[in-house]
């Protein structure tokens, strides 16, 4: 497993840069991850999405479906791509420290 230094701590990530241990996540890590995804600043809107994803994940053990994400955050998918250019799965979920979305690729 490769390791990355994120926000000063060494964290295991996979090849795609997803952190391997969700417990290691914190806001600073999020910021560091954001940079790897071309998000230079985490605005309130970014945090709204990130926090939503995290809470959803902690509650249900899964990432929400995109439709739900949009409905619940009030952002259109376009807006989400504007916030996270690599998209909700590769971008937002990674920054929120969720396990790598599997499945349908």
């Amino acid at each position, binding site marked *: 497993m490769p390791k990355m230094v994120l926000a000063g701590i060494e964290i295991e990530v996979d090849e795609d840069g997803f952190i391997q241990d969700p417990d290691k996540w914190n806001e600073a890590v999020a910021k560091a991850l954001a940079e790897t995804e071309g998000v230079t600043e985490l605005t309130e809107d970014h945090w709204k999405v990130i926090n939503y994803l995290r809470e959803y994940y902690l509650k249900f053990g899964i990432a929400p479906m995109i439709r739900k994400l949009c409905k619940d955050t009030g952002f259109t998918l376009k807006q989400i791509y504007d916030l996270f250019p690599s998209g909700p799965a590769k971008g937002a979920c990674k920054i929120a420290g969720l396990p790598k979305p*599997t499945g349908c690729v």
Partner: protein
Amino acid sequence: MPRTDFGPPHYGEMLPPVIKRNYGKWAYHEILKPGVLKHVAESGEEVYTVRVGSARLLSTDTIREICELADKYCDGYVRFTSRHNIEFLLSNKENIEPLIAEVKAKGWPVGGTGTCLSNMVHTQGWIHCHTPATDASGIVKAVMDELYSYFEEAKLPAKLRIALACCLNMCGAVHCSDIAILGIHRTPPRVNHEMLAKVSEIPTVVASCPTGAIRPNPKLKSVDVIEERCMYCGNCYTMSPAMEIMDPENDGISIWVGGKVSNARSAPMFSRLAIPYLPNNPPRWPEVVEAVKHLVEVWATHARKGERMGEWIERIGWESFFKLTGIPFTDKHIDDFIFSVPTFRTTVQFRW
């Protein structure tokens, strides 16, 4: 920022002039010989097609070679078929034989039309996928080598479509092919609990199992597999890298027959299990090649003219199919999934 969302090139830019002129106004066609079609337009114009077998996995240099031929004979246009063959479209009849001569000189086959075997639709296998139970390209090459003459000569009772998929995801159309070669796992996934706890969505993994063989294991923050209920589909592996499914000792191949897609004569049909297991035996998978060849030959010997594999079997009955091919019938052949019941024989009508 690059352009996005502009879509594929418009097909109109890609059509040879003769086609553009007669677009939607074709009158009829003939197969001049295997691999060579003639389409005649209402206008009287003609277009000739030379169909060339392809490895599908092509290097850029080979594509450039194709382009050279297309430039020379086809005004710079070429197409590929839905089964990955190359089609050279000629407006000049005189060019047919010279083109074929050059193609053959390169060692490429011409054929695949009408009652020929066409190219095999297949998948990635060990070349580029993460769940395969077998390779794809290697078996395809071995099978096509053996059945080569069926591609070049129109000597079968009807079309023959062979396909291969390297796992139960069945990328391609193996579920509806005259003969399908399908990679199968045969042992349950090995759960890496530590890894699973970290990198997987447990509800998703649980829901991924078609037979309900996966139960959450909250203590380990992981899942357990009820082995008797697992039929090794590998779908849980797709959902989690912690459900290792590949097993070199037991992975292998199954053979399916009688599917079709066209609505001609009979409705589309699924391929059905013929041989539950053959070993992986690279590089040439002799058992698989032998089995496929045998199936083709038994069909070719017994079917009526124009009868696809599945149509022949449905006419003579599956009892007779197993008898004629000598393939043993086992409990594996009897469906036990959701829609099993309609496959059970609910009549005393059957052959001995």
